[in-house]
């Protein structure tokens, strides 16, 4: 770390160095919520008529996707904030968002093919824009985290990853447009068995909304935990320096 930026960041840095425990009530509440969702989805939500029990993966797949998008959006937003304010807290939040986002994206990419195999009869459908977009998002986030691990200097690491976070956010609409054009020219969009039903019966909708709340809480809990780990790591690095 060069001398000048360290001095400029002293005030917020010292304030952020005091942190709560990594495991706390938020994580416990979120974990219990997700467990409750499993119980409700399996035992207290009706089985979908055409898809059968396979549709239950919906309560895991779609909320995980929404949680992933929240986490990744946080990374993009905090990247902009970092380049603007040079606050190391923004960098740590961006890092936490990317790591948590990668976990949820992995859940989406694991459950998607499992569901697709039952419903589409194929593990992977390149014409499904959401799945394809999620895959490329996974690659961008993975590259982001590899860059973070490959730069020694803390200030340079923060700048590099902020640049990558912003460029990644710019890239996503282009991949979306490209895949849209690709599938529009080759395949019609699925109408009968599209993955997300626009109108759900009320019990399914309630389960889905509860699942979304539980996953959003879990996402927030993970990000906070990861942020606190980051604070402890930086503190340890400073003590060693």
């Amino acid at each position, binding site marked *: 770390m*060069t001398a*000048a*930026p360290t001095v400029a960041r002293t005030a917020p840095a010292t304030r952020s160095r005091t942190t709560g425990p990594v495991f706390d009530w938020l994580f416990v509440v979120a974990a219990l919520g997700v467990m409750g969702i499993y119980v409700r989805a399996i035992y207290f939500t009706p089985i979908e008529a055409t898809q059968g029990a396979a549709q239950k993966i919906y309560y895991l797949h779609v909320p995980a996707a929404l949680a992933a998008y929240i986490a990744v959006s946080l990374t993009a937003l905090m990247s902009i904030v970092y*380049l603007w304010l040079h606050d190391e807290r923004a960098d740590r939040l961006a890092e936490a968002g990317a790591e948590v986002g990668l976990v949820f994206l992995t859940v989406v990419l694991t459950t998607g093919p499992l569901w697709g195999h039952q419903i589409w009869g194929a593990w992977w459908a390149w014409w499904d824009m959401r799945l394809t977009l999620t895959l*490329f998002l996974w*690659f*961008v986030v*993975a*590259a982001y985290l*590899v*860059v973070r691990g*490959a*730069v*020694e200097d803390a*200030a*340079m690491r923060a*700048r*590099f990853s*902020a*640049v*990558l976070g*912003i*460029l990644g956010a*710019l*890239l996503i609409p*282009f*991949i979306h*447009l*490209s*895949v849209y*054009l*690709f599938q529009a*020219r080759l395949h019609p969009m699925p109408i009968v068995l599209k993955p997300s039903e626009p109108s759900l019966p009320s019990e399914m909708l309630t389960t889905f909304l509860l699942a979304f709340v539980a996953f959003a809480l879990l996402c927030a809990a993970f990000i906070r935990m990861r942020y606190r780990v980051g604070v402890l790591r930086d503190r340890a690095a400073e003590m060693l320096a």
Partner: protein
Amino acid sequence: MDDVGVRVTARPPGTIAAAWLIARKDLAIEFRTRTAFLSSLVFAVLALCILYFAWDESVIAPADRAPGVLWVVVAFSGLLGLQRSFSIEEHDRGIDALLVAPTSREAIYLGKAIGNLLFLCAVQAVTLPALVLFYNLPVGQSLLAVAAIMLLATIGIVAVGTLFSAMAVNTRMAELLLPMLSLPFFVPVLLNAAQATTRVLGGRPASEAWPWLRIIIAFDIVFVVACTMAFPYTLEE
């Protein structure tokens, strides 16, 4: 240094003039050593040959897979050229001389990008005829259209590739990191370019290729601007 056109004047050159000087410097180095050019070129032609044998000739006609092969080869041979863009500055800390030069950091980026663009175009000027030769493509107007698509796509590839090359040299695993960083960003360019090329080589009307080209042009504009603005952050302060 006067053979690359540097004259001592009272005023420092403007952004475009400085960028051109940097591009000429890089191309002069390349012209004298020719190592990166030859390795990119040999790689490209070799990849064309190897990919020929990757499919059964009787199942998919060579002309049908030519567009896909072309864009895979363009992407990977391009990476070889981009890799070298900033690694040549690392030896003897040439980058320090560029940083203390009386020019904006945007000019350094633009100069590097122009140098890379000309380098990649030179490699492609051999790759395309080699593709025509090995895949028995008809020689005609459509090849001019393919060359135009290649130029548009290469602008986008160079815009992000130059920035990531600058970032990658400052990391612990530069050679590994550049493809990992660049390839996701090449996806929109390669996907659209391959689709447009398929239509052009298939003799379809130009209007069918246009929707794909539109995305590449938008990508070029957005990423040339964004990467020029982002470049100063990738240099040491």
